[in-house]
């Protein structure tokens, strides 16, 4: 219930009661209430997921042929992505206009039309209502009124766009074209991994995270935590000094790329100096991998980049960790739960050796990943940690106060970028 002592005008957009503390100026303070409130979650559905954003739905490779469909989600709203006979991809809400039941019950399949099981209303592959059972009644009795027009009823349709085999959709009529939304740098780096390739799905897993979705997407953009929380590479002395890296933050702040690459110059210098030992950071650990083949990946993109984590606002991630490639789709399931959908991919023309390497390096990622399992629980640590602290805030000052691209990964610039975009979309 609104507090009638406070005029509505002072309430930030979407909130039904005053925030526990006002959101401080700038990008370096994040009030914890933003991870805790139902009104914020509802507001995000309209302003973020159904707002002026592009959201990943599925891979084009999953709906290759006319009639192929994939039941997916946009921020938790059930969506059907379908290939029609004109070759185009259409997306519409998986919800019958009659009484609201799901139209398709399978996760994917091939069909000529969709028929709701409840009362057999049917739809074409573009989501147009094409049939109403007993529309004219039976023996002149019952039926729909004369004035009922099927053309006036259809599930909400989404705009779709395909980017290097990734199907994005938007519920907004005013959102910028997807290329502009992504920005040139992000587009290039999606193309670097997926451009001109024929993708093959090699595995699909869903990880249920015990935290608000924003804690996960912050984590993805947080290049600062990588070597501190994920100790696998350090413990087994696999960190290389001769690596360079950086961070790209899009103009909007919402999209980012974090990467590291072999520094060929440093490598050549070290070799010239016969200084092999200097290539490895010494640590106090005595551990060595018994089977180091897990790290004998190939430089498949030919640029020495061993890690590229790319995110698109709000909930899309493209990951290249050596030869382990995956798409991650982040879906809120209420204030304190998130579904993380992993799609592990390879390419049709993978050699058997490369394919085996993808399977081996799959151990680095996913719910049991050597360098990612911690990300499954750390959001929960925050969600539980901030109980009772709605009037407090997180501090994001590593690497400064802005949200710009840098040559270092010891920064929270892309986390600040996320909040820049978030505040712009939500008005909070």
């Amino acid at each position, binding site marked *: 219930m609104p507090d009638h002592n406070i005029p509505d005008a002072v309430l930030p957009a979407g909130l039904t009661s005053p925030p526990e503390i006002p959101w401080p100026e700038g990008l370096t303070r994040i009030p914890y209430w933003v991870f805790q409130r139902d009104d914020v979650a509802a507001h995000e559905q309209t302003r973020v997921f159904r707002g002026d954003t592009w959201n990943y739905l599925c891979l084009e490779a999953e709906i290759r042929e006319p009639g192929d469909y994939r039941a997916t989600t946009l921020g938790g709203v059930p969506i059907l992505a379908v290939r029609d006979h004109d070759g185009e991809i259409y997306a519409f809400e998986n919800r019958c206009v009659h009484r609201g039941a799901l139209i398709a019950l399978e996760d994917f399949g091939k069909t000529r039309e969709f028929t709701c099981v409840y009362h057999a209303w049917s739809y074409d592959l573009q989501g147009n209502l094409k049939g109403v059972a007993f529309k004219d009644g039976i023996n002149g009795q019952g039926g729909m009124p004369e004035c009922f027009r099927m053309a006036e009823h259809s599930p909400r349709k989404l705009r779709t766009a395909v980017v290097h085999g990734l199907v994005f959709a938007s519920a907004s009529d005013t959102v910028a074209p997807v290329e502009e939304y992504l920005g040139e740098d992000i587009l290039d780096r999606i193309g670097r991994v997926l451009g001109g390739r024929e993708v093959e799905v090699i595995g699909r*897993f869903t990880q249920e995270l015990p935290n608000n979705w924003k804690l996960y997407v912050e984590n993805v953009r947080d290049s600062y935590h990588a070597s501190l929380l994920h100790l696998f590479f350090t413990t087994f002395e696999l960190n290389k000094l001769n690596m360079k890296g950086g961070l790209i933050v899009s103009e909007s702040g919402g999209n980012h790329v974090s990467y590291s690459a072999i520094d060929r110059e440093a490598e050549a210098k070290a070799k010239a100096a016969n200084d092999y030992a200097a290539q490895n950071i010494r640590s106090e650990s005595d551990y060595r991998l*018994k089977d180091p083949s897990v790290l004998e990946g190939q430089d498949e993109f030919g640029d020495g980049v061993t890690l590229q984590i790319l995110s698109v606002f709000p909930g899309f991630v493209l990951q290249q960790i050596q030869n382990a490639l995956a798409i991650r789709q982040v879906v809120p399931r209420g204030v304190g739960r998130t579904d993380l959908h992993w799609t592990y991919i390879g390419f049709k023309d993978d050699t058997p050796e490369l394919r085996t390497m993808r399977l081996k390096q799959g*151990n680095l990622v996913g719910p*049991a990943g*050597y360098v990612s*399992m911690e990300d499954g*629980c750390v959001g*929960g640590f925050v969600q539980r940690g901030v109980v009772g602290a709605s009037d407090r805030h997180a501090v994001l000052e590593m690497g400064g106060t802005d949200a710009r691209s840098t040559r270092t990964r010891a920064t929270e610039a892309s986390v600040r970028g996320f909040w820049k975009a978030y505040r712009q979309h939500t008005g909070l």
Partner: protein
Amino acid sequence: MQITDIMAVQARYARCIDTDRIEAWPEFFTESCLYRITTAENHRLGYAAGIIWADSRGMLEDRVAALREANIYERHAYRHVLGLPLLEEEGPEGVRSETPFLVARIMRDGATDLFATGRYLDLWRADETGAPKLAERIVVCDSSRVDTLLALPL
């Protein structure tokens, strides 16, 4: 190889994990082996990737070392409850069996959940002493979902 031999090894395997003696877990496998955790959906679709994927005992030992020394997760334990193994005829590769399982996860605060159900698709080979070793264990989880993370092996 008798069904009772396989049942005895499976009972020891479950106790090894449930009593936090995972250092001994790789010893249930042959030197060259396949251990993979997947889901019924991935299995049905023939997707080769795993939540865990290892093709050598060394990789299993590395997994244990990582869990002990590198990875960070809240303390927890499993309780495996195994069903009866269904043995297929012995082939040139060894003996194949299928065994259903339930695994409860007990978190450090006592919260207990049904973490996974599924079946083990096993390929057994006798070692030099005649004891069954796993040349292959495909852990096919019924659900496509994993709560929070999967640290300890199934």
